[in-house]
C-alpha cells in the first residue's frame, strides 16, 4: 500500500484516513466541499517535504492548509489527494526586536505573532479580519490584507524571505535579497499552487507612539469618498479608513446601540504616528470631514473610547452572521474614485436578484465587501446570492478594478479570471504554473479557468490605454523578427554596457517616453519605461506628487529590470509587458490592492530583460516625498537560480531575450526545482537565524 510508505516517513499518528476525519477537511470558510483521500498533520517542515516528495512520486495532488478560514474555496481538495495541514507548525522561531524581524513557522496564528511582537514594542502589520485564528502561512499564501494595509501594505509587503517546499519535493529558500527576478513575490500570494511555505521571515513594525480614531457620518457615499480622496491628497495616510453603509450600521445598532451616526455612509478613520503628528493630522481630518459634509464627527484617543468607536465596525460581520446561517463576504476592488459608482451598481444588482447586500469597505484602497446573508440549504436563494456576488465582481472589473483585494481567487472566482485578464495573460499565468508544477499537483484546478469551463461574459475589463506609437514599433519589431533571432533589451545602457552581440535585434526602450496617466484622484501613475528617472521626478514634482523611485540615472525600465534596491517593489501595481512571442500582456492594474492571479509585475523586477520587455508600469503615488536610498550599488547581471530559469521559460520559451545573461536549458526533466537552501543564495547571512 503506497500510503503506508508515507505513513512510515512522517510523525506517528499524523496521517488521518477515517471518513469522519476527512470530512473535517472537506471545507473552508466558503461553500464548496470535497473530501481529500488523506490528511497529514505535519509536525515539521521535513514532514511536509517528505509528503510532497511522496505526492510527486505517486502523482497525488496535495493541498496545504492553515486554519482553513479562507473565503474563496482555496483549500478545497477538488481533486482529492493529500491535505497537508500546517496547523501544528506553530512555533515562532526567532524574534529580533532590533532588526524588526521574526522567523515563524507557517502555522503560527497571526494574533500569536502580534502578542509576541507587542511585548517588545512592535507589531505585525497585516491584520485580516480572521487574525485571531488565521495563520501567517495562510495569510502569505492568500496575500491577506486588512484595515491597516492602507498605510502599512498587505502581507507581501511584510515577507522578507521564505522557505518553500516546491512541487517536486525540493526545498528552496527565497529572499528579497536574492539576485535576479523576485521569486519570493511569485510564491507569496500563489494560494499554494506553486509550493508550500514552510518557514517565513516577516517584517515587524514599531508600535506608533499615538493613535487616534475618528468616526464621521456623511450625507452620501459620494461625500464620504470625496472626503477620503481629500484626506489622501492632504498627504495624510491613515492606518485605517473604513466605511459602512446605512443598512450595515442599522443592523449593528439593532443588536447593540453604539450611537453610530445613522447617515448614508459612515467613515471610521484611524491615524497613528508621533503624538504631535497625530494631533495635527486629526485636526486636519476633522476639518476635511466637516468640509465634505459630515455633521457628526466623534474622535477618541484613549484605548477604551477608541475601542468603542471600533465596536460597530468590528461587530458588523458578527451582526450579519446572526441574520442567517451563511454570509457571502464578497471582495472586489475598484479605483477609489469609482466607489460611488460601484455602490450604485451593487444596489441595482441586489435589487435585480432580490438579495440584501450590506456594504463594508476599506475605503482608502477601494476594496469593497458586499455581505449577503442567506441559508445555503435554500438552493434557489443560494443560486441568487451567488449570481449577485458574481455580477458585483464583474461590475468591479468593468469599472477598472479587480476580482479580489484580499480574499484570493481559489475555486470561487477562477472562471471570473477570464473577465479580468486577456487570453494571452491567462496563458502566461498557466505557463508559469506549468513551469513550477508541470503535473499540476500543488492545489490543482485553482486560480484559473479550467479547460472546458465557461467564463460567461468573457473579457470585460475596460481596455487599457492604447500603446504608444513607439511601443507598437517594438511589438512589430519582435513579431516580424525572423524565427530564432535573439533580442537585446536595453534602456539607456547605464547599467549594462556590453556591446550588442552580432546578429541580435535591438529592442531599445529609451523611446518609450510617455507619462500615460497621472491620476491625482486615485494617486496612481502609469508611465512608459523609457522615461528617464530624473525627468520623471522633475515632472511629478511639478504636480506636487512623489513616487518611490531612487534618484538615479538611466530609465525607469532599466531601474526596475535591474532592481538595485529591494524597496522598488513596494508600490508596483501593474505592468504592460511585451513577450518574446510578440504577445503583450497586461498585469495588475490601477488598484492599490489586488490579489487576482500571480504577482508577475513584482516577479519581473530584477529579471534584467530576460523575461519580457516592460513597456509601461503603474505605481502608487504619494502626496509627500518618500524615503529612498541616496546611492545605489553598482549593478551587475545576476546569477539565475534554477527556479528563475524555469520560470523564464514560461515567459520566453526559447530564451530569446538577453540570452547572454541567463543560461537557457531545453529541459528541466529530472533537475530539482530548487537547490538545497544551504548552498543557494549569496546573502543568507542577512536573514535572521532560524534555530532548529
Amino acid at each position, binding site marked *: 500500500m503506497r500510503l503506508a510508505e508515507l505513513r512510515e516517513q512522517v510523525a506517528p499518528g499524523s496521517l488521518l484516513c*477515517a471518513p*469522519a476525519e476527512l470530512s473535517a477537511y472537506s*471545507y473552508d470558510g466558503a461553500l464548496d466541499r470535497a473530501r481529500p483521500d488523506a490528511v497529514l498533520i505535519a509536525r515539521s517542515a521535513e514532514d511536509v517535504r517528505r509528503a510532497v516528495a511522496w505526492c510527486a512520486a505517486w502523482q497525488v495532488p496535495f493541498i496545504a492548509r492553515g486554519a482553513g478560514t479562507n473565503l474563496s474555496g482555496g483549500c478545497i481538495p477538488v481533486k482529492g489527494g493529500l491535505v497537508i*495541514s500546517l496547523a501544528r507548525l506553530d512555533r515562532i522561531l526567532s524574534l529580533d526586536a532590533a532588526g524588526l524581524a521574526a522567523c515563524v513557522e507557517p502555522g503560527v496564528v497571526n494574533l500569536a505573532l502580534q502578542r509576541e511582537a507587542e511585548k517588545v514594542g512592535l507589531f505585525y502589520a497585516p491584520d485580516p479580519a*480572521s487574525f485571531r485564528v488565521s495563520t501567517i502561512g495562510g495569510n502569505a499564501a492568500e496575500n491577506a490584507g486588512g484595515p491597516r494595509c492602507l498605510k502599512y501594505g498587505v502581507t507581501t509587503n511584510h515577507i522578507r524571505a521564505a522557505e518553500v517546499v516546491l512541487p517536486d519535493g525540493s526545498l528552496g529558500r527565497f529572499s528579497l535579497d536574492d539576485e535576479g527576478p523576485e521569486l519570493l513575490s511569485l510564491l507569496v500570494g500563489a494560494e499554494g499552487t506553486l509550493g508550500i511555505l514552510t518557514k517565513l521571515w516577516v517584517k515587524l513594525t514599531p508600535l506608533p507612539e499615538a493613535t487616534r480614531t475618528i468616526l464621521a457620518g456623511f450625507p452620501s457615499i459620494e461625500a464620504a469618498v470625496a472626503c477620503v480622496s481629500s484626506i489622501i491628497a492632504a498627504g495624510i495616510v491613515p492606518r485605517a479608513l473604513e466605511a459602512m453603509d446605512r443598512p450595515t450600521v442599522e443592523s449593528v445598532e439593532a443588536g447593540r446601540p453604539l450611537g453610530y451616526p445613522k447617515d448614508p455612509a459612515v467613515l471610521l478613520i484611524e491615524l497613528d504616528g508621533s503624538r504631535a503628528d497625530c494631533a495635527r493630522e486629526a485636526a486636519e481630518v476633522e476639518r476635511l470631514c466637516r468640509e465634505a459634509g459630515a455633521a457628526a464627527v466623534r474622535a477618541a484617543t484613549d484605548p477604551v473610547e477608541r475601542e468603542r468607536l471600533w465596536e460597530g465596525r468590528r461587530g458588523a*460581520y458578527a451582526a450579519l*452572521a446572526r441574520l442567517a446561517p451563511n454570509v457571502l463576504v464578497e471582495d472586489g476592488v475598484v479605483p477609489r474614485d469609482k466607489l460611488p459608482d460601484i455602490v450604485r451598481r451593487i444596489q441595482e444588482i441586489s435589487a435585480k436578484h432580490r438579495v440584501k447586500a450590506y456594504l463594508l469597505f476599506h475605503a482608502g484602497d477601494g476594496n469593497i465587501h458586499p455581505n449577503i446573508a442567506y441559508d445555503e440549504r435554500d438552493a434557489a436563494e443560494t443560486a441568487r446570492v451567488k449570481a449577485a456576488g458574481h455580477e458585483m465582481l464583474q461590475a468591479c472589473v468593468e469599472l477598472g478594478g479587480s476580482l479580489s483585494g484580499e480574499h484570493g481567487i481559489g475555486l470561487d472566482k477562477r472562471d471570473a479570471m477570464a473577465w479580468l485578464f486577456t487570453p494571452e495573460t491567462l496563458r502566461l499565468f498557466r505557463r508559469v504554473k506549468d513551469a513550477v508544477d508541470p503535473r499540476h499537483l500543488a492545489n490543482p484546478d485553482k486560480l484559473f479557468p479550467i479547460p472546458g469551463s465557461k467564463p460567461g461574459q468573457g473579457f470585460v475589463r475596460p481596455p487599457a490605454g492604447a500603446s504608444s506609437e513607439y511601443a507598437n514599433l517594438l511589438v512589430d519589431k519582435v513579431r516580424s523578427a525572423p524565427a530564432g533571432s535573439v533580442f537585446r533589451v536595453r534602456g539607456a545602457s547605464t547599467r549594462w554596457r556590453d556591446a550588442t552581440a552580432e546578429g541580435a535585434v535591438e529592442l531599445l526602450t529609451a523611446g518609450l517616453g510617455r507619462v500615460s496617466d497621472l491620476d491625482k484622484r486615485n494617486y496612481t501613475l502609469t508611465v512608459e519605461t523609457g522615461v528617464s528617472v530624473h525627468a520623471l521626478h522633475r515632472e511629478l514634482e511639478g504636480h506636487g506628487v512623489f513616487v518611490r523611485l531612487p534618484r538615479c540615472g538611466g530609465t525607469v525600465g532599466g531601474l526596475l529590470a535591474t532592481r538595485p534596491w529591494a524597496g522598488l517593489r513596494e508600490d508596483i501595481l501593474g505592468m504592460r509587458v511585451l513577450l518574446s512571442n510578440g504577445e503583450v500582456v497586461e498585469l495588475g492594474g490601477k488598484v492599490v490592492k489586488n490579489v487576482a492571479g500571480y504577482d508577475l509585475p513584482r516577479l519581473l523586477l530584477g529579471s534584467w530583460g530576460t523575461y519580457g520587455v516592460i513597456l509601461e508600469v503603474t505605481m502608487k503615488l504619494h502626496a509627500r516625498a518618500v524615503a529612498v536610498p541616496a546611492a545605489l550599488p553598482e549593478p551587475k547581471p545576476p546569477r539565475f537560480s534554477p527556479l528563475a530559469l524555469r520560470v523564464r521559460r514560461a515567459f520566453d520559451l526559447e530564451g530569446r531575450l538577453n540570452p547572454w545573461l541567463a543560461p537557457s536549458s531545453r529541459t528541466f526533466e529530472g533537475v530539482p526545482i530548487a537547490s538545497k537552501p544551504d548552498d543557494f543564495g549569496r546573502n543568507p547571512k542577512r536573514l535572521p537565524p532560524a534555530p532548529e
Partner: protein
Amino acid sequence: MAESLGRLITDLGERSLYDAVSQCSRCGYCEQACPTYVATGDESKSPRGRNQIVRLMLEGKLDDKASSMEALSTCLTCGACTTACYAKVPVADIVLEGRRLLRGETHWLVRKICRIMIASPGFFAVLLKIGFLLKKLGLSRPARPLLRAAGLSVLAAMDEHVEETPLWNLDDATRHRTNPVKAAYRYFAACGPRYLFPRVGLATLSALDELKGAGAYLNNPCCGLLAHNYGELSDARELAKKNIEHAERNGTEPIVGDCSSCVAFLKSYPQLFLKPEDAAWRERAAAFSKRVQDAIEIYGECADRLPPAIAEGVETTYHDSCRAINPQGLKEQPRRAAKKAAGASYCEMEGADACCGGAGAFGFVHEELSDDLLKKKVGNVASVQAGVVITSSTSCLIQLARGFRKYYPDAKALHLSEFVAGALRKDHGA
C-alpha cells in the same frame, strides 16, 4: 440509539438540532478557542469540525461511527467556542446530541448510578463511603488493573486522579444545622461539594449565611448532569422534575449552588422540556431556572462587603470554570470577589479561561489529551508563580489538585467559597 433532545434553545431562539448546527457558517473563528484543536491541530477535533460531522450525520452523508464518536467524545463541552462564535452556535449541546445519536446503549454502570441517584440517594452516599474507605485503606490501587480488565478503566482513572476522599459528607456535617423559617437562599448541594469536597460546601454555607443572611440546606436530589451528559435523557428529566418539585415546595428564594457545572445545568433545565407534551414542565423549569444562581455570582455582587485584603504573601490567581464563564458568562463577578479578598497578591494568568482538561469524566476517559491541557494550565499558573488558584467547579478542583501534585506542588486549588469564607473568618478573628 439513545433518546436525543432533537430541539435546542439557542441564542437565536429555539431551533431544531439540524437548524442549530446549520447556523455554523464554517468561518472558523472558534478554532483557537478550542483547547482540543489547539492541542492536536486536528480539524475533526475542532468545534467547526464537530459541527460539520454532526451535520453530515443528520444529512445522511457520513457513516463512520467509530471516528465520528472519537471526534465528538474528545469534546470537552467547555463551550469556549460558543463564546467566540458570532451566532453563538451551541456546540456543546450539539456534540452531546451527536453522541446520543451515535451511542448504542448507555454504559450499564452509568445507568446504574443514575438509577441509584434517582431512587436511593442515601444508598449512593453509602457506596461512596465504602469506596473512599477502600481507597484510604490502600485497597483501590491494587484493584486498578482488575477494574481496567473489567472494562471499567474510568473507575481506575478516577481512583488515580482523585486524592481527597473524606469519610464524612456534607449531609453529615450539616445534620445539626437548623434551617430558618424564612431562608434568604436555599443551598443546592451538588454532588462534588456534597460528597467529595464537603469543605467547599461548608465554606459556601458560611460565606452565604454571612453575605445574604441565613439559608436553608434542604437535601436536594442530584441535578442530573451525569445522566444528561453520559446517560439517558429520561433519567435526567426525572431528576430535573424532582428538583423542580422539591424547589417549588419550599418558597421562592434563590437557589444557590457552588459547582458551576451543576449550576449551569440547572439553569438550562427548560431545554429538557421542549416537547409539546412537556409544555407545562417547560414553564415550571423556566421559573425554577430563573431562581438559580452560582455562588460566585453572589460573591461578585457582594465584593464591596468583603474585608479588604489581608496580605498573605501568596500570589493568588483565578481559573475560570468553563461552565461558569461560557454558558453563564461569569467572568468579572468572581474576579471582583477574588481581587477584593486577595488584594495586591491577586494576579491574572494567561489563558485563565482555557479548560484545564477536567471537564467531568473527560479527564478519566481521555487521559492523554486531558494531561496536555493540564500541563499547559499548570505552566500558566507557574509563570505567575501563584500559590493559590481559585476556581468554582468540582472537576476543576480535582484536575487542578492532580496537576499541582504532579507538576507544581507549590500551588493549591481552592473554591472561591473557601477563599471568601476564609477572608470573612480572618476578618472576624482580627
